[in-house]
């Protein structure tokens, strides 16, 4: 049934029985005690959802779908990760209609957060992975509690197919703030008219990879 057909139906002032029958036919949840106005509201909302779906299909500029004057989406295909504090990061996404339909077709849409501290991430070598199931129709963002301050994180939005995670969007890297004093005993000083002076232990070279097998972590 198209949106127009539905609107024609609604404009004919149907009886409550007719409205309920149609709503059931469309797969909407109709409760026994519902008033006529409630059933009609249900159908109107459904009609509206058809409109917005249609707009997205046409790939018209998404900013035309406005709530309170602002677009709900810019169709930008973007995953943004921001650190909130040493133990919390925030991630939100904004999807194009293509990506949305691609992901919506999947059974299991997942949001992953990788700990990529001190590594060049190649998709498989994260120190640890956090995962959250995502209902795209209900969720547009997510807060991850993270165990480590002063660590680099990166997020991916994707889906699981045949037990394997397929990333669709990747975020920027975000570093969580530090919340403990440094363990370094090194001191560097600048003295007017002189070079930098170093006191304490020489710095260690950064660790290339913490000794945890990411193979095990990612279940591969």
């Amino acid at each position, binding site marked *: 049934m198209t949106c127009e057909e539905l609107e024609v139906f609604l404009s004919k002032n149907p009886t409550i029985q007719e409205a309920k029958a149609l709503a059931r036919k469309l797969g909407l949840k109709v409760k026994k005690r519902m008033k006529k106005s409630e059933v009609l509201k249900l159908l109107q909302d459904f009609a509206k959802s058809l409109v917005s779906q249609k707009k997205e299909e046409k790939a018209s500029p998404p900013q035309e779908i406005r709530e309170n004057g602002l677009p709900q989406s810019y169709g930008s295909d973007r995953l943004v990760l921001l650190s*909130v504090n040493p133990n919390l990061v925030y991630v939100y996404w904004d999807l194009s209609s293509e990506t949305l339909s691609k992901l919506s077709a999947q059974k299991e849409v997942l949001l992953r957060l990788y700990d990529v501290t001190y590594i060049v991430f190649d998709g498989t070598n994260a120190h640890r992975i956090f995962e959250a199931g995502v209902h795209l129709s209900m969720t547009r963002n997510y807060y991850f509690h993270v165990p480590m301050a002063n660590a680099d994180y990166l997020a991916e939005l994707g889906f699981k197919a045949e037990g394997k995670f397929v990333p669709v969007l990747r975020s920027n890297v975000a570093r969580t703030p530090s919340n403990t004093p440094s363990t370094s005993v090194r001191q560097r*000083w600048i003295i007017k008219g002189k070079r930098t002076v170093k006191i304490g232990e020489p710095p260690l070279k950064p660790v290339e990879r913490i000794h945890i097998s990411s193979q095990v972590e990612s279940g591969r």
Partner: protein
Amino acid sequence: MNGYFLLVLHTHLPYVNHPNHDLYLEERWYVEAVLESYVPLLMMFDRLQEKKVPFKVTISLSPPLLEMFRNTTLTEKLKKYAEKLVELCEKEIARANTQQERDLAGFYRERFLACLNYLDSLNGNLANGFKKHAEFGNVQLITCNATHGFLPLMRHQPFAVDTQIKVGVETFKRHFGFEPKGIWLAECGYHSGLDETLKKYGVEFFFVDSHAFWYADERPYFDVYRPVMTPSGVFAFARDPESSEQVWSATLGYPGDGRYREFYRDLGFDRDYDYIKPYIDKSGVRVNVGIKYHKVTSRETPLEKKELYNRDEALSAAKEHALDFLNKKISQINSLTDVFNQPPVIVAPFDTELFGHWWFEGPEFLENFFVEASRYRQIKFATPSEVLEKFDSFQIVTPADSSWGNGGYFDTWLNGKNDWIQLHLVEIRDRMKRLAETYFEEKDPLKTRVLNQMLRELLLAESSDWPFIMTTGTNVEYAVNRIKTHVKRFLDLETQLVKDNIDGEFLARLEQEDDVFPWIEFRYYAAFQTRKEG
């Protein structure tokens, strides 16, 4: 041996300008801050100078505030407002039942008249008053990032951070005619790498909260009591945790003393509706009018039982507290000197509105503090630039990512109440960058105006005040509306530009309403511009 004390007053209000309305509810933030804090502080500086009392204060003036200072429509509203208050005081003198009430009404009348005179002496622009003291050398003026945007949440879009700093420095130069040496980063928001951008625009120092030093990459030898140098050669000063606690703690702070003026009991709510109506908000909503006859009395006393304010009594409290604070600072300096065997640097930053607006007697407290301290040798007042001259060596440290907000990180500006704004801010920043690059060579004056206005709308949307208000829960509707308005205006202008269908009238209206930074250049936003300069 002695120690240095740096008083830092951070002065900021979001840009609120509704030129096509009578005094707007939120424009009261500005008129109240001017009448209750800025003018009384400037008058206090004048008195100290006349008395030849040594004092040094670092004052950051945020770009939106400087733009409000020069906004003549707003200045007219401010004057009208003060004149109305004088009128109200006269009615109050006539209706007073007791001599005490009559005296109080008379006190306010004189105070508002003095403010009006003072504004006139500055030709209506408060920046002149601050500049005067900067020229005497008692005040070091510093800038703030463009619209007080919270920088750690923009770090993944470095061109956005860059523009906030550039516009902050530029605004200061345009208003004062000289370069700012230092910056107050909005909300003390710092993230590693920001020092490089500051360096690029000639900023020599900035301020961070204490834990930015405590959790730095290497331990600060002098704790928070000495500025450090960041790897890019910019200096950072950290806040002394004790000073702010002593002055401003909700439970232990001085402003809670029973002799001080009670902020929350105001004529705007006390008087009969018809009588007070001409002096409250146009919509008829009762608001504070700034005339308050009562004292705190005690914390437990309900508002309606508060006793009448006694000015002399309040002033002696301000003196007592100044002495107490001075003693605390001297003993702090003594014990820090014992620990380090070196002179400490104590940095005490506050929001300027604490003095006068929230704490009515705050300016007199500061005045007494400087007067009394002049009798002691242990405590020396200094500006940041002077401190940097005093020492020969500095530790090189990268401060930790931090802010002075609740919890010390970014929670206040990013949480469930305000996270929705990120979608829009991130998007319009990217669009602005793309357009700045596409239209970089654009010569058409109308298109250039559209692009410049888009950058203004973007910057106004970035103000940290809007997400802050959403978190704290007062005036939320206004804050939400402001973000939506600026984003929508940005998008509408973009559509007109791209479709080559520019509505000149619409553009002119936005230029009149959102009229910050008239000299702004949309090309700031081009990424290659950023790289070229860096």
